[in-house]
């Protein structure tokens, strides 16, 4: 069986699949890949099911030695590695893959044909970093066995892969308390704050006024834009709390979740309002692209 030896883990590298569903009523959010589009594409390119466990690297990549041969792909952001992105690449026994600092975006996925053979916790291999559910970030010396769960042949290089540019436009639909707010969210740009993490993306920019409504703690979905008392929005991310008491003017659309995963501190973003039908049409287009791989 082939294995990966972690020579250097990078800044924050974790095993991720598409998340752990069915436990939100215990306060456990799904976690899963921060850029699910890159993870799914990476898995499809090497011939895996799209949900196979892979490595998510954050801001600075790691160094990995392969024991045995492997077919891998790097998808998401460019982490200054020697292999091309968005295509399957054969790795020889003993070869080392070195990834460096992100040249753009925040996350890069290393998918391996056959998937990582790691234990599942509550049906998922995803590490929930904040709580330790599903494991912990990689450390030097960790060894990851490669599985044999490939489902088809590796694919041709992906064409038209999504690219993260400095300024992201996040499309949103109305949140449950949208009526309490005016246009403030959409008039200016916001900057991603350093304290952002997999729980939430904290923004700074034009403060949202405190709405007058009476808010009772309620369930919150992925991508919800919360307005806390200081008016600086927080976008709930993959390790988000399952319930919350702040009003929510908007919700980032599913087709833009991958953009959230590629935001890095100090990036500029702006919000745009679209209709529910528009959001679903954009999601269909994105799925079409994935199925073209």
């Amino acid at each position, binding site marked *: 069986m082939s294995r990966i030896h972690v020579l250097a883990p990078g800044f924050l590298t974790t095993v991720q699949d598409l998340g752990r569903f*069915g436990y939100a*009523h215990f306060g456990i959010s799904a976690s899963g890949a921060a850029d699910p589009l890159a993870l799914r594409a990476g898995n499809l390119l090497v011939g895996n099911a799209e949900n196979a466990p892979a490595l998510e690297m954050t801001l600075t990549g790691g160094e990995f030695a392969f024991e045995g041969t492997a077919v891998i792909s790097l998808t998401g952001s460019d982490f200054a590695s020697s292999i091309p992105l968005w295509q399957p690449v054969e790795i020889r026994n003993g070869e080392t893959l070195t990834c460096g600092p992100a040249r753009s975006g925040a996350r890069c996925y290393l998918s391996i044909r056959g998937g990582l053979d790691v234990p599942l916790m509550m049906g998922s291999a995803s590490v929930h970093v904040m709580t*330790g559910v599903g494991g912990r970030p990689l450390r030097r010396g960790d060894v990851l066995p490669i599985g044999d769960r490939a489902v088809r042949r590796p694919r041709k290089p992906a064409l038209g892969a999504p690219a993260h540019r400095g300024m992201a436009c996040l499309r949103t639909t109305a949140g*449950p308390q949208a009526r309490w707010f005016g246009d403030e969210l959409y008039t200016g740009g916001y900057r991603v704050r350093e304290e952002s993490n997999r729980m939430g993306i904290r923004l700074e920019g034009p403060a949202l006024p405190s709405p007058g409504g009476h808010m*009772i*703690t309620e*369930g919150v*979905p992925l991508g919800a834009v919360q307005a806390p008392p200081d008016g600086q929005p927080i976008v709930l991310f993959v390790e988000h709390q399952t319930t919350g008491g702040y009003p929510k003017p908007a919700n980032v659309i599913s087709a833009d979740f991958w953009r959230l995963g590629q935001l890095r501190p100090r990036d500029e973003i702006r919000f745009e309002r679209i209709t529910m039908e528009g*959001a679903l049409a954009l999601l269909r287009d994105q*799925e079409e692209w994935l199925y073209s791989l």
Partner: protein
Amino acid sequence: MPVLVLMIVLEDLYEIDERPDIFPTRICHPGDVKPVTIQPVSDRSLLLSLGDEISFDAHLAVVRLTQCLQGVRGILNLHPAYTSVLVDFDPRLRSHAQVEALVRERMASHADQLPPEPRRFEIPVHYGGENGPDLGDVARHTGLTERRVVELHAAAEYLVYFVGFATCFPYLGGLPPELATPRLAAPRKYVPEGSVAIGAEQAGIYPLASPGGWRLIGRTHLKLFDPSESPPPLLRMGDRVRFVPVREAQP
């Protein structure tokens, strides 16, 4: 249960003023259905709402909804809260209208389902000192002695309205109104695991170390959630909880 032994210790120490059970075991009859409003709140979720009044009736309706939607194909996650349930679904497989129809159909077919019998737990608590650094502040704010704060806190029965926030945090109703104390102006970066807390009119227990803005009055060594084990966690929606003061030093 070992906590029963501790109750004897408690009785020498404190005079318990018996409060009536404010959460009757079952007041809702099969077939009672509160009107539910259903609203899309993202392109992959619906919020099922039972109004904006926190009540035991609304809680029972939330329990019933959560129960009847458990394990339904096409529903990814359920987030129950005080008066609502958020339903996450996969928008590639289901539309909002389809999920709404599914929810209404399940509500109708499960209208006779009774909520599970409540389970009762006693949680041993080391109050005050370094286990409860805000006990003094709660006493000052409420105008009570620390001893009285502990007596009142430990005399009440609490209802687990729901479990949520960040990992198995039980939202407890039933805090004696005299003990209500506002949250900290600036949340702590680190709240130790097992901290027993008051946040305005609510009570809770931090299952894992995390940031938090509630007032910490004590700590339990009971493990509410172990990340290396699969759920369910110790406390679940609908359970009843009492706190039992313990005198020994920190475990």
